């Protein structure tokens, strides 16, 4: 397992979370480097969202450590979260505020300097000018995703967490979003941890993938070469095989 990548923006060590007898995440360790997009894959209930929740500081691990840009989340929560941001389908922005109002509120929450200028830049980048004064609740799911991504970029995060960001988008919009996130990573601004069930997307954007199943990392590597290395025709076949493997062994 490559544990010492240069410039790790996220470093997760021996992370564990159990709900009673059920172990949701079982001592996983991984890193995300600056400029890298890492895909976190796995079947439903594998522990992906639990992992992301712990990195976002809204769920306390039973053991293990999380460091964001060198800052320990347990002891420097505000500093670590100030270098992080996220977008997830299950965390929509308040629909009763306009696009600009939401960006301003979250910009203040993240302590962004020269906020008005930053908001204008993001509105331009994510093609939101015509929705600037519209309430987020009336936007289409694709438009809402763009606003959520603009919010996720408001503090120019070192670590960007994306939980199925393209789940509700049409192929054209999804491709645009992938290109923007790719651009974010390539620019070296930060690293991205991306969860999705779309294997084509994973091969298109991710530099590395982690296969999570039953709370454990079962496999990791380059999504373009992994299937062949494990004797599977496609990434999807590999996904299915990995997801089933622990069950058949039990």
């Amino acid at each position, binding site marked *: 397992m490559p544990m010492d990548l240069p410039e790790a923006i996220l470093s997760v060590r021996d992370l564990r979370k159990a709900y009673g007898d059920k172990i949701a995440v079982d001592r996983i360790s991984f890193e995300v480097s600056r400029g890298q997009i890492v895909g976190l894959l796995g079947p439903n209930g594998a522990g992906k969202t639990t992992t992301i929740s712990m990195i976002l500081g809204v769920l*306390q691990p039973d053991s293990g450590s999380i460091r964001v840009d060198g800052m320990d989340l347990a002891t420097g929560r505000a500093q670590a979260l100030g270098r992080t941001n996220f977008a997830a389908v299950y965390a929509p922005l308040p629909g009763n505020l306009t696009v600009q109002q939401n960006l301003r509120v979250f910009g203040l929450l*993240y302590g962004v300097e020269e906020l008005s200028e930053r908001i204008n830049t993001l509105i331009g980048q994510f093609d939101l000018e015509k929705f600037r004064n519209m309430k987020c609740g009336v936007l289409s799911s694709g438009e809402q995703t763009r606003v959520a991504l603009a919010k996720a970029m408001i503090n120019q995060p070192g670590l960007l967490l994306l939980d199925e960001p393209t789940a509700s988008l049409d192929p054209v919009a999804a491709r645009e979003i992938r290109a923007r996130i790719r651009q974010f990573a390539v620019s070296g601004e930060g690293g991205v941890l991306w969860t999705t069930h779309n294997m084509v997307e994973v091969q298109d954007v991710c530099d590395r993938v982690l296969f999570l199943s039953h709370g454990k990392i079962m496999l990791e590597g380059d999504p373009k070469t992994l299937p062949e290395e494990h004797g599977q025709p496609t990434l999807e076949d590999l996904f299915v095989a990995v997801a089933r493997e622990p069950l058949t062994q039990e």
Partner: protein
Amino acid sequence: MTATYFRPVIAISLRYFYLLRGTPARWIPVFAWVAIDIVLWGFISKYLNSVGASSLNFVPTLLGAVLLFDFFTRVMHGVAGVFLEDVWSRNFLNLFASPLTIPQFLLGLVVTSTVTSLIGLMVMLVLATALFGLSFFVYGLMLVPFLLILFLFGVSLGICTCAMVLRLGPSAEWLVWPVPAVISPFAGVFYPISILPHWMQFVGKLLPVSYVFEGLRKIISGGTVPAASLILGGGLAVTYVLLACWLFKRVFRHAVRTGILARYSAESLS
């Protein structure tokens, strides 16, 4: 503490003021209900003045008590209402995955409630003075500590109810609104707590607001408010604010540890 510290506090308040600006219906709880209360109790007070044999003026006694109790209610509901906006819009994940700290969050709730409560208070003062001749000069400088005690106790109860909703889930919001009504019989808003049964008197003496209403009646009857009573009421109110902040922080940590916060959009939590 730098100006940067207050940016998240401003964010919490700004969000609510955006909502107030964009939705006229949200102004109703800010001043409409208190205005209705003032009008209703103003006429009741006038009626009692006209039929009662007593020389007691009911306007400063009853209407003044209603006004002060409504101010306390507004503060408490104000704190809880700002919190509930984030419950309703399922915004907890976005909020608490940001660098926002609990003291900043609570300060944001209190600042917002202070502004809206003062607006409500102004409306009540104008109505009570213009329509029913209630003069606040009758309470003298005592009005300042009275309002301060009511404000602090309103803040403490508001934060406690936020902790309760965070712990029990969104459906617990229905337990928030009746809290002032539950407190009022013990607080002696309209009568001295000495007429209550002993156990109710005991509860009343633990409520900072009861010292305000006892003091108010003392002033109206020509007496003076004992300093010890004000100090006790103020001391209790400050203690409850500190306890409420401690409680919220404890409940928040529990919510982070158990996963309640991460799964908060569920209708009810166990």
